[in-house]
């Protein structure tokens, strides 16, 4: 698609955007992959349509406010990237566009306050934990609240667990085979502290020493993908300071969204100071399943104990693992490595569950429709367990599966492995 985007006036991010627009041949191969197109059935809410909208805005042909509603509905799930044979870097385009356009948006004071609150609360585990508890107690009031406030409450688990601080260094057990840095995550620490606990146990059991570097913060993905570029840059710089890539074999994350965010650092600082360091850093970043999967393939993963009875595990591909990081095989292999486990493929597996970072809060109706569809598809495999590798998917799926009357446990892939090691599956 030819563009006349005034690249010079847009800076380094302008180059990124112009390149993506040019690469699109508007073949439409991405349409069937897009969740919002699947639900709304119109071109403006498809990847191809959104690329055209962004191009028109950047070229000055269309007011931003006219394109915004359709761009806001994009989940950033990157299913279109997996589907696109022309290699259009849609993820980079929409992220850069959101960063560029946010300062130009006119938002209502309520909208601004909500966004600011989300971006403040999400990355701060302690604040989040308190907010979640307050929300939990306020839950009975939910029906009285406006939709924008109700949505986040619907997602809270019935029981918000207590925060569990993690040791700064978790030593390897047995022969030490590696040393990794771990991104402890933010909201996840409050909502699902066992994700981290299980991760540390599994790594230690496999002879890996884990360091949680001090001074680390939120990965910045939420800020970046909602267009709060300055805030994102601040967080990126903070983490680049906290993690010295030379000190570790790998930098691990157990949240697909965060891992994808860390791998994006070179794009964020493209053309700015620190690009070099960001590249070295990103080269070391791995998802926990990617890292353990490699151990498994090399025959270095300690064998999990067999399950007490045959178990069907429905594995849900988090968008930020499958599409953004192209990790599909490793988590399945890890689950299959547990004797007694069969992995079930979920119908429409590539369609986002609707969680997508802050999407649940910003587009509650679409998020809800996708959640209902995802839960139905997962339950159609009659699983004994549901596994995924992302906190956002986890809460969304759990909440919708429960609403459809099922009590099937929803776990992180690494929790399943941890249980298997302990003979509790």
């Amino acid at each position, binding site marked *: 698609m030819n563009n006349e985007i005034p690249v010079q006036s847009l800076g380094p991010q302008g180059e990124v955007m112009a390149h993506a627009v040019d690469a699109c041949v508007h*073949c*439409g191969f991405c349409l069937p992959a897009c969740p919002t197109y699947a639900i709304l059935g119109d071109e403006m809410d498809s990847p191809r349509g959104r690329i055209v909208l962004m191009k028109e805005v950047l070229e000055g042909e269309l007011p931003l406010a006219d394109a915004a509603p359709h761009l806001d509905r994009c989940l950033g799930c990157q299913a279109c990237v997996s589907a*696109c044979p022309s290699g259009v870097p849609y993820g980079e385009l929409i992220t850069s566009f959101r960063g560029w356009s946010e300062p130009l948006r006119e938002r209502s004071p309520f909208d601004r306050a909500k966004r600011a609150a989300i971006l403040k609360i999400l990355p701060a585990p302690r604040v989040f934990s308190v907010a979640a508890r307050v929300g939990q107690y306020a839950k009975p009031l939910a029906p009285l609240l406006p939709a924008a406030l109700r949505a986040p409450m619907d997602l809270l688990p019935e029981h918000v667990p207590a925060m569990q601080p993690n040791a700064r260094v978790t030593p390897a057990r047995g022969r030490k085979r590696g040393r990794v840095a771990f991104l402890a995550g933010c909201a996840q620490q409050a909502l699902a502290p066992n994700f981290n606990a299980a991760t540390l146990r599994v790594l230690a059991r496999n002879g890996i020493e884990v360091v949680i570097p001090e001074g680390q913060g939120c990965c910045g993905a939420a800020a970046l993908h909602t267009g709060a570029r300055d805030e994102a840059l601040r967080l990126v710089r903070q983490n680049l300071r906290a993690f010295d890539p030379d000190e570790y074999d790998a930098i691990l994350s157990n949240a697909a969204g965060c891992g994808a965010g860390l791998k994006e650092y070179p794009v964020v600082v493209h053309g700015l100071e620190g690009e070099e360091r960001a590249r070295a850093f990103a080269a070391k970043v791995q998802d926990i399943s990617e890292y353990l999967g490699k151990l498994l393939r090399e025959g270095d993963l300690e064998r999990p104990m067999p399950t007490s009875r045959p178990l069907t595990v429905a594995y849900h591909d988090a968008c930020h693992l499958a599409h953004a990081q192209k990790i599909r095989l490793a988590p399945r292999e890890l689950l299959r490595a547990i004797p007694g486990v069969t992995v079930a493929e979920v119908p429409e597996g590539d369609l986002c569950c609707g969680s997508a970072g802050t999407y649940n809060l910003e587009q509650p*109706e679409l998020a809800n429709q996708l959640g209902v569809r995802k839960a139905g598809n997962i339950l159609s495999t009659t699983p004994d367990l549901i596994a995924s590798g992302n906190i956002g998917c986890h809460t969304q799926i759990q909440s919708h599966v429960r609403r459809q009357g099922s009590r099937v446990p929803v776990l992180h892939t690494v929790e399943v492995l941890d249980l298997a090691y302990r003979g509790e599956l």
Partner: protein
Amino acid sequence: MTPEKVASTPGSPARGPRSNGVPDSPLAAELTRTLGPKKVLSARSERLNYRYDAIQFGETPLAVVLPESTADVVTAVRAARAAGVPVVGRGAASGLSGGAAPLRESLVISFTRMTRLEVFPERREARAQSGVVTLSVTEKARPHGLIYPPDPASFRTSTIGGNLGENAGGPMCFKYGVTGDYVKGLEFVDEGGEVHELTRDAYDLAGLLIGSEGTLGLITEATLRLTPPPRYTRTLMASFPEVGEAAEAVSAAIAAGAVPSKLEFMDRACTNAVEDFLAIGLPREAGAVLLVDTDGDDLETVEEERALVEAACLRAGGTVRRAATDAESAALWQARRSVSPALGRIRPQRMNEDIVVPRSALPDVVREIRALGDASGLPLVQFGHIGDGNLHPNILFDPRRESPAAVHDLAHEIALVAIRHGGVLSGEHGIGTMKRPFMREAVDPVTLGALWSVKHALDPRELLNPGKILPDEHEDAPHAHP
């Protein structure tokens, strides 16, 4: 949920025109009144997205209707006629001849929400509304032991309405035929807003609508023929040092009596573009590659046919690789399906041809086209359902680097090669606007006159997809540029 119709945020500092979200044409206002706001798009940001297909950008439509039923289509067509506004039908806009891109300010009727699909296994039939995605017909029929064979490379995206509009083919068409061979009947809305149900008895009017690119009527539903899938399929890939040798192998294999279910061809530029994208080990140095499936219910015959093809390929100077597993053959076919968009990595735009020539002429034709491409200095690639004599020479270009006039001239010369060898301008992608300028050379004046008479009988006011297929009656020279 109801999609928001207008921007939720007030004006922005972005430059350029502004819209206020109010239907800005009387037609849009009228349609919104009769069909309700959910089915009508009138804001400019929305209409902008209905001006293109996979090859061309056209005029921004005055309004867009997203009908949910035949009755909605009738309402929309009547309103457009009353307003004297042309009507353009649109499926997934994956068309490669500009068919769904409006040339004038029009009403676009986009069928993507008309997706009702029923399968009647006992009759081996499916009834599909026009917005049904092609692949989903087979997906829904498969549990009943049936498939829908027409398989354009775009089958995950394209719609049944668009397939009928273009009479789409696909790799399977060599043995199993094209879309039109699987249509038992169809329902369409004419220019006056009347609904017709056509079968293929008496005058084959259904056949007339198939491939008419929305210029004779709007197809709303179709009854499709389903078949049981063959029990066995075998795949092979052959690579050749030179492009003409691949074509010779095709002629020889078919002359020897093989009827492969798929027989596809990719030249070096294609294999390399796909390899850049998929990295599945295609032979980068080969001048051309053939991909062949033989199939049937009797394994011995299927293997015999594969052996015939293999022998022909070896005699023509090729190297043959058999797909050992289903996964391997799936990968090879994915490679073929990815050709078209993978080419976008080379240049942002392309002029895409869709010629069909007699099989005996294939070696000469592919060599002549290769030579034209080399002489022009423009990136030119060839691929296609070569078993049918169907070739897709594509000229890749970037209008900022290459002159559109040079591109057009090369396309014209390629069209002339086809015509000189007794071929035609379109096998499956339609004429649309892209190949309309060459129609005068391909079709004699008397026949063109007859085509115009048919058009006028069904569309006297020329309101249905004007400017497509048929060159203006009063013009005589090809002139339009891509």
